[in-house]
């Protein structure tokens, strides 16, 4: 081939490549600019600037990422069992997953809300909701563990949850699937929805010292689908706003039948007024069955208590608690700006975003500027509550977060983009594509009075061609945008666990200093703790055998156990004697229909094992702990039922008969 021909071919090739790029404007090459790598690079040994707590969706767990690197640090088990950590498998954590339906090993975790003081993120706890079997959980940011789970009676599809008031006075939980209340006969025709189905909103009080949760009251509201919510703040503190769809009250083919009306509602709830009614004795005690599970860091154990009563306020009877604000069209997100004045309703089938004014809502209520009632709740006139509409923002608005500089950022599922707009003049400032079909979005502190701005994270439902293919199920993903300038800039993609719904983020410095490094062995009040090897033992109580065991680098004590018989239930209570950061030990035994134990320094956890056959069963440490980790093992001998092999246990003493002189 002649040189000129080669050159021509090269030009042609470049042209073709350019042509392909030009035809595909939404590819990564055109969306990411040159300094993106610099902005997300966190050098080895350096820390990220923010913690990002991301819902794990149908994994039931909460994931913890660093920003701006997008590195995954931890998956905190909350509503689903986690064999890696023994969560829901060891005896200590099984009660955490107890419900009125018994042990439930899975849920669908959608939303994440960090505790606040004076409307600012305080870094103490993260609240998350369980959507399927309605529950709210509290994760303690000292230990990054689930500390408490509270079930919600009279509820189904706990979706508009767990949003909080500005001093974490309450966590709310509104029911997405209205159902007949628990204390009446629920054996009714499904198409009697309009007569029999109700929507309940739970207000869970939070103890400001220890975070303890309690259902202070429930509001009985019309049977609709309560979707999302946010508390008022600043001037609107004392109010809560819930979006609701299906004001048609359809019970079948909701896709069509719940999309009939031009407008559904945002329900404004005056919870201070509800508190007054509660004090005045207007609440009705009704019977209900729900579990309250708490984990104690001193006994290293959870307990589950079934409660039997809840106080209900009826929104229809007590007229001035709830007000409906018409909102186009099947509203999803319901977000309040940092000043507390503007409430943004995102009608997921609408092509505009209505922004309501708290002051105007108050005026309308005072003037009884109502267009009528919906199921006994006053309906404020749309125009009387409206600050204005963002026109032609995009298709399918879902959620809005704020940067504290007067801007709002709304996600658009259908048109796959984030749109930045000015809260006051409602003008669109900027828009960026997402890859693809964004659901929630997050700005650090973005639903508080003091957003930290700087970054925006998009949580996408579909990734298609963004990552190497891994079979039919692809990772869902997050995308990080730099929002420090006028224009948003895409700087990073990272895959997520499960399905990311809502997420929140906070500066690392608020959280990292409080992190527990180990549990003090002196403060271990576990009933089966062994404080030192001298206290290890094996105790038989009928067919239950309790092994009081210790783990330290690098042996288990006792490591030889004989005298276990078929029909026994063996409980290994393993105490990790280490008192240093980052030295967990693991424990597993062959054939256990169970998971491993993963025991933090100073902690005691228990593995239940029911041997299924006679023989020798090795046990070992599963977490590489030292140069002699492979030596950290032992044997258990199982004899037939009724055998007279004596119960024996020891470490370093059970030598062969001929060698017994060597043993000391």
């Amino acid at each position, binding site marked *: 081939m002649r040189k000129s021909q080669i050159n021509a071919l090269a030009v042609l090739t470049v042209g073709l490549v350019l042509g392909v790029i030009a035809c595909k404007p939404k590819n990564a090459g055109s969306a990411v600019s040159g300094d993106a790598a610099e902005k997300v690079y966190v050098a080895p040994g350096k820390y990220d600037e923010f913690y990002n707590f991301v819902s794990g969706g149908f994994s039931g767990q909460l994931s913890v990422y660093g920003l701006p690197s997008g590195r995954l640090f931890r998956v905190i088990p909350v509503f689903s069992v986690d064999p890696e950590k023994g969560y829901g498998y060891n005896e200590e954590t099984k009660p955490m997953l107890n419900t009125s339906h018994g042990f439930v090993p899975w849920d669908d975790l959608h939303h994440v809300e960090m505790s606040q003081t004076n409307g600012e993120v305080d870094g103490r706890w993260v609240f998350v909701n369980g959507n399927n079997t309605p529950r709210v959980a509290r994760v303690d940011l000292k230990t990054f563990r689930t500390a408490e789970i509270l079930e919600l009676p009279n509820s189904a599809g706990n979706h508009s949850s767990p949003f909080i008031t500005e001093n974490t006075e309450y966590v709310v939980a509104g029911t997405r699937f209205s159902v007949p209340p628990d204390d009446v006969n629920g054996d009714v025709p499904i198409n009697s929805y309009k007569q029999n189905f109700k929507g309940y909103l739970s207000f869970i009080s939070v103890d400001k010292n220890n975070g303890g949760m309690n259902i202070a009251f429930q509001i009985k509201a019309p049977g609709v689908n309560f979707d999302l919510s946010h508390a008022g703040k600043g001037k609107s503190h004392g109010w809560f706003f819930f979006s609701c769809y299906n004001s048609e009250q359809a019970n079948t083919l909701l896709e069509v039948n719940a999309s009939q009306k031009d407008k559904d509602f945002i329900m404004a709830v005056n919870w201070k007024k509800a508190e007054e009614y509660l004090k005045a004795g207007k609440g009705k005690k009704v019977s209900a069955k729900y579990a309250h599970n708490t984990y104690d860091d001193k006994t290293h154990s959870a307990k589950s208590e079934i409660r039997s009563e809840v106080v209900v306020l009826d929104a229809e009877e007590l007229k001035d608690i709830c007000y409906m604000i018409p909102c186009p069209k099947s509203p999803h997100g319901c977000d309040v700006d940092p000043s507390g004045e503007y409430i943004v309703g995102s009608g997921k089938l609408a092509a505009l975003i209505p922004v309501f004014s708290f002051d105007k809502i108050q005026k309308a209520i005072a003037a009884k500027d109502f267009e009528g009632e919906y199921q006994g709740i006053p309906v404020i006139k749309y125009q009387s509550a409206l600050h204005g509409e963002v026109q032609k923002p995009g298709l399918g608005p879902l959620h809005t977060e704020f940067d504290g500089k007067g801007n709002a950022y709304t996600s658009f599922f259908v048109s796959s983009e984030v749109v930045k707009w000015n809260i006051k003049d409602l003008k669109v400032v900027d828009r960026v594509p997402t890859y693809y079909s964004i659901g929630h979005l997050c700005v650090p502190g973005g639903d508080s009075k003091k957003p930290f701005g700087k970054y925006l994270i998009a949580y996408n439902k579909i990734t298609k061609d963004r990552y190497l293919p891994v079979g039919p199920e692809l990772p869902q993903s997050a995308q990080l945008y730099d929002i420090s300038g006028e224009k948003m800039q895409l700087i990073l993609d990272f895959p997520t666990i499960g399905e990311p719904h809502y997420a929140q983020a906070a500066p690392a410095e608020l959280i990292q200093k409080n992190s527990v490094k*180990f549990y*003090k*062995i*002196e403060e271990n009040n576990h009933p089966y703790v062994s*404080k*030192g*090897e*001298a*206290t290890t033992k094996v105790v038989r109580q009928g067919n239950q055998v309790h092994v009081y065991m*210790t783990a*330290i*680098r*690098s*042996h288990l*004590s006792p490591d030889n156990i004989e005298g276990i018989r078929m029909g026994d239930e063996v409980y290994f209570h393993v105490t990790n*004697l*280490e*008192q*240093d950061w980052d*030295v967990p030990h693991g424990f597993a035994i062959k054939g256990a229909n169970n998971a491993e134990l993963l025991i933090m320094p100073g902690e005691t956890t228990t593995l239940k094992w029911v041997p299924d056959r006679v023989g020798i069963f090795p046990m070992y440490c599963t977490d590489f702990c*030292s*140069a*002699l980790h492979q030596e950290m093992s032992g044997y258990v001998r199982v004899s037939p039922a009724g055998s007279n092999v004596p119960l024996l246990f020891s470490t*370093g003493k059970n030598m062969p008969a001929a060698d017994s002189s060597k043993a*000391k």
Partner: protein
Amino acid sequence: MKKLFIIAGLIVFGIACGNQKDSPKGDENKSAETSESTENGNPSYDPNRGEGKYTSVELGASLDQAKATEGEKVYGVKCSGCHKLTDEKLVGPGWKGVTGRHKPEWIMNFITNTDEMLNKDPKAQAQLEICLVRMPNQNLSDDEARNLLEFMRKNDGVK
């Protein structure tokens, strides 16, 4: 022979890693009686004292029985898993004679500042080469450490 080289290599490598940050050059050649001072007025590294906050530990002429009894309790929970009271090595060395082998300051620094000592102190590193398990930092309080020292003295026959 080949094996020996590998082991020697590993040890040198291990020390090199551990020393990266903390060890000033030529440290190992300095005598204990060096008179150089660091910025805060402390003497530079003294291998008899070790690295840590204890510069002098007062010992009574006779045993403080109360301290020794408390120390024995701490031993039971935090130390006995790895250390025997005889001279027999378990995971770590047996404690018999330990108060004769090391100055009280060195013991106090080693049991409260374990990681730095293992990174820096020649005697601690020599022991690590034998045991090959880094002693865990058991996060002893000052009182616990002092009580343990008294229990070690009792174990070594101080009355």
